[in-house]
């Protein structure tokens, strides 16, 4: 597919916004849980993005600092660039990129953020109620289970090559260091990046 062939009409932009508005309230557990549907909408149904662009948006947002939901913004950005003929086309493409980014982020965040805000206000006014206290407390063991599951998934993703033991070692070591010491996390991430780069450049 030639990415520069993408043309979005006004109603296409509207579709983009409304589709993401609709996904927002389904994103329980984070926006990442709706990626399958985004892939269907953006790549398969409309061909606004290529597969490679879609995957790159997810990977970059994982690697970049900040909330992972930024991958949605990056999809809007590269979709806008496509419709402007690519970054090489200069300012017009950048504006379309920014428009895609803005619409995608507003869509995915607006409904869920409003709901969170309203729920917070309600819960603050009723925090002494037995039902509210029980709700919050009852979630604690579930959240810890989810955290350990996330750690497991990340560690498995990293530790699936010939050099896997090194990466598992990195995971265990950084767990212990963050738990028991006050070492800054950026040092650990930097060290992890250095070890990984060294291993793949000089295997």
């Amino acid at each position, binding site marked *: 597919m030639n990415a520069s062939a993408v043309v979005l009409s006004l109603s296409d932009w509207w579709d983009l916004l409304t589709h993401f508005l609709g996904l927002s309230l389904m994103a*329980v*557990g984070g*926006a990442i849980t709706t990626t399958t549907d985004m892939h269907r909408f953006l790549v398969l149904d409309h061909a606004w993005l290529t597969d490679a662009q879609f995957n*790159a948006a997810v*990977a*970059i947002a994982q*690697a*970049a*600092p*900040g*909330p*992972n*939901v*930024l991958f949605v*913004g*990056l999809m809007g950005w590269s979709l806008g660039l496509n419709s402007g003929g690519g*970054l090489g086309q200069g300012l017009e493409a950048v504006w379309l990129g920014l428009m895609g*980014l803005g619409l995608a982020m507003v869509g995915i965040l607006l409904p869920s*953020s409003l709901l*969170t*805000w309203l*729920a*917070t206000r309600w*819960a*603050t006014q009723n925090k002494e109620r037995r039902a509210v*206290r*029980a709700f*919050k407390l*009852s*979630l*604690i063991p*579930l959240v*810890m*289970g*989810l*955290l*350990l*599951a996330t*750690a*497991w*998934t*990340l560690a498995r*993703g*990293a*530790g699936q090559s010939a050099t896997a033991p090194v*990466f598992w070692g990195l*995971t265990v070591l*950084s*767990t*212990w*260091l*963050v738990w028991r010491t006050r070492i800054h*996390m950026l040092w*650990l991430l930097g*060290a*992890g990046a250095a070890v990984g780069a*060294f*291993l*793949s*450049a000089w295997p």
Partner: protein
Amino acid sequence: MTQRPQSRSALFWAFTWLALQGFGGVLAVAQRVLVDERQWLTPEEFAEEWAAAQVLPGPNVVNLSIMLGERYFGWRGALCAFAGILSLPTVVAVLLASVYAQFANLPAVAGALQGMSAVAAGLVAATALKLAVAFKKHPLPLALNLGLLTAVFVGVAWWHQPLAWVLLPLAVLSYALTWRRLLP
């Protein structure tokens, strides 16, 4: 004793700062900045707020920023914290995306990403260990809490079941058990 943010701009910068340090997700660093450094929340409070942020739809750190902003400064605070967690990181992500294409094929870059996600896994695991103090004052006995924790872990990480299917029944069970043990 916990502190509270001095101003809305302190809130904005705290969330900007924690977002910019959060590689591969912001949770681990959120715990460190909000609980260890600024002491705006106790570990127990953090676990509760985090849990609620996780169950509501939407990205959990964005939800957390809205919840804390609202708690200290009302809707203006919620907006400031929301802006903090998203503004600068969006700029950084777009810049990264713009240079990524040129270096994506270098093996060293792929390796560095792999190393960083191995470390990120450790950061998340350590966060869970630190939050375990919340079990001390919990109305449920430790064994029950650990059972619920294990059920979530196995369902999500090993059986790869959809999140909602695992969480909904276990949340109902956990809620019923906790509710019964709380004094009215």
